[in-house]
């Protein structure tokens, strides 16, 4: 298991655990255990990150991504 913030570009993770005080809002954006999330790119200065989830693009600051655990899928 790794943190969402540690995903490499192009890697897909399956969300396992969300441990954040923003979890309701993140849930509403589709971050739910079992859902696939792919790191598309980082902003030019390295933060925030852009993900693909449920067929749309979502950007999050790294800080929030540290509260989400994913399992890297092949």
């Amino acid at each position, binding site marked *: 298991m790794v943190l969402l913030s540690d995903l490499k570009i192009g890697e897909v993770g399956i969300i396992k655990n969300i441990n954040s005080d923003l979890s309701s809002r993140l849930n509403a954006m589709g971050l739910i*255990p079992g859902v696939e999330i792919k790191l598309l790119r980082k902003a030019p200065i390295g933060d925030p990150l852009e993900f693909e989830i449920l067929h749309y693009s979502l950007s*999050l600051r790294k800080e929030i991504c540290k509260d989400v655990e994913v399992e890297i899928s092949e």
Partner: protein
Amino acid sequence: MSKQNIALIGNPNVGKTVIFNALTGSKAHVANWPGVTVEKKTGKLGDILITDLPGTYSLTPTALDDLIARNFILEESPKVVIDIVDATNLERNLYLGLLLKEIGVPVIFVLNMMDIASQKKIDIDYKKLAEFLQSPVIPTTAIKNEGIEELKKIIAENIKNESEQNDPILYPEELEERITRIQNLVKGFSKNSKNPRWIAIKLMELDEKVTENIKNQPDGENLLNSASQFVKEDDRISLASARYSYIKDIVNVCVKKTAKVFDSSEFLDNFFLNKYFGIPIFFVIMWGIFEFTFSVATPLMTLVEVIQEWLGAIIINGLGETLFSSFLVDGLINGFGSIFIFLPNIFLMFLGISFLEDSGYLARAAFVMDRLMYKLGLHGRSFVSMLLGFGCNVPAIMSTRTIESEDDRIITIMVNQNMSCGARLPVYILIGGAIWGSGAGSIIFSLYIIGIVLAILIALIFRKFIFKGKRSPFILELGDYRSPTIKNTLVHMWERGREFIKKAGTIIFITIVIMWILQTFPLGADINDSYLYKVGEFFQPIFNPLNFGVIAVIGLIFGFIAKEVVVASFGLLLGVGEGAANLGSLIVQNLGNSPIIAYSYLVFVLLYTPCVAVIGAVYKETGSKKWTIISVVYAFVLAYLMAFLVQLIGGVYF
């Protein structure tokens, strides 16, 4: 019989504004929600009152927009809620829909962006979707007005149905069982609770607002205690998962993607968000907006001036030199009209922002700049508005509306006035040129830098001492790029511009009338005997430590109205024309022929309130007298201190 009341809701950027305008004929009434700076728009369809709720993804009580939407639905009990859904992304969009159904309010689903859905070869079976959702589903392409008539019809039908029974959407058995138990407790607790099922679900989610509300009622603690035995630790996630898996079932049945289509947004992002080019591209786009604004605005501004002169001449010819004609010409046309001179700037800049926003790039700009801005106590969205401030602070301040979080927005508004707007430049050129000649360029540049550095410092100070709490998060959808339609972009521009004229107009008008009175009376007196001069003399002692004389002080008073009029007013005060070659050196003479004092005067001009229109814009956008006053006061104090500092360092006192 109270009026029928319905609401529009939807994720951000799904076309809610377009549909609202189509339903209400664009006659919106805009105000703020009580106590907060979030905009509230209402309009009418026949005699049905339509309220446009903020764009939201969920109804969680911790996000302001969500809470406003949720409270409206709970407290005002709209007859129907129209949930506008992006047909190209049902998976995420329907989540909000399920939350609405959960509240128990009748919902009409609008599937907007059907044109894009068909481009993307997405086929949706509406009939089945309506069955799943147990609500009407209407496909629309709002920008082409397709489906709007049908929507109006369905609204009319649904409004007539009295208290239609709303079957809930069911969760997996294990959850359902506990929901029922808690629901029964809630019913026992309060017989006339409108939506015990919703309350039960919120108790399982440990919703702060609902819990707090119950706690404050007699016996509330008891209810919470007995409910808590049926609540498990991760119910919040289980419920969310259950909603998503239900949506997945729906989408699997109702949505077919018939072909794979080239994803142009992904392609464009590889370019616009590129690791190496992303930032240069951002600056080029921003530069483009400036170029566009000023190259189009300049001839328009000249036109406004020509019209002013022409109107003035007609009035003087018609009425002669009377007090009334002086009021019309000097007060209204030239005074109030000075606002029209920078109206082209404001409108064109709004046009640029609307274009960026509608195309989908504005969200990307925030993405690109967020890291830097975050470090400076601001938000990715702040950057664009600070940059726009170099053009004109008014649209720049109004552009902060795209920043969702209140503290980020207020800080961004507060520091904007330090960005040196275009109207201050002529003052720098006039005075700087008179002293430093061809070396004035670097002097002027240093002023811009001082403004930027102070903006950053002030943002950090506000962050450290006033908004100490947790920083607001950055959770931003990067929607598909779209080619904005001309009509929509113009509508957006017009809405922003019109509001500015309406809201800022009053404060500007009052100030200008006062200035005219001061300048004109006592009648027939020379400008040096006018009340204005007296006012200047009255305030001048405050500026003694800065070595500013009466004329310089009156210049500042004029500058308070608009920096555009400073140069002209110096001409008036010193008895030469605006274009006079020696005007600059006359002012410098007035400032004791000292480069240091002149420079400190320019620093003062840079830092105190840019113009009354900015005060109007700050008031409009913060919705708070307190913040408006703070912005004026801190600007003045800062200007004073910095100007003093310049003279201290420059050795005027030694």
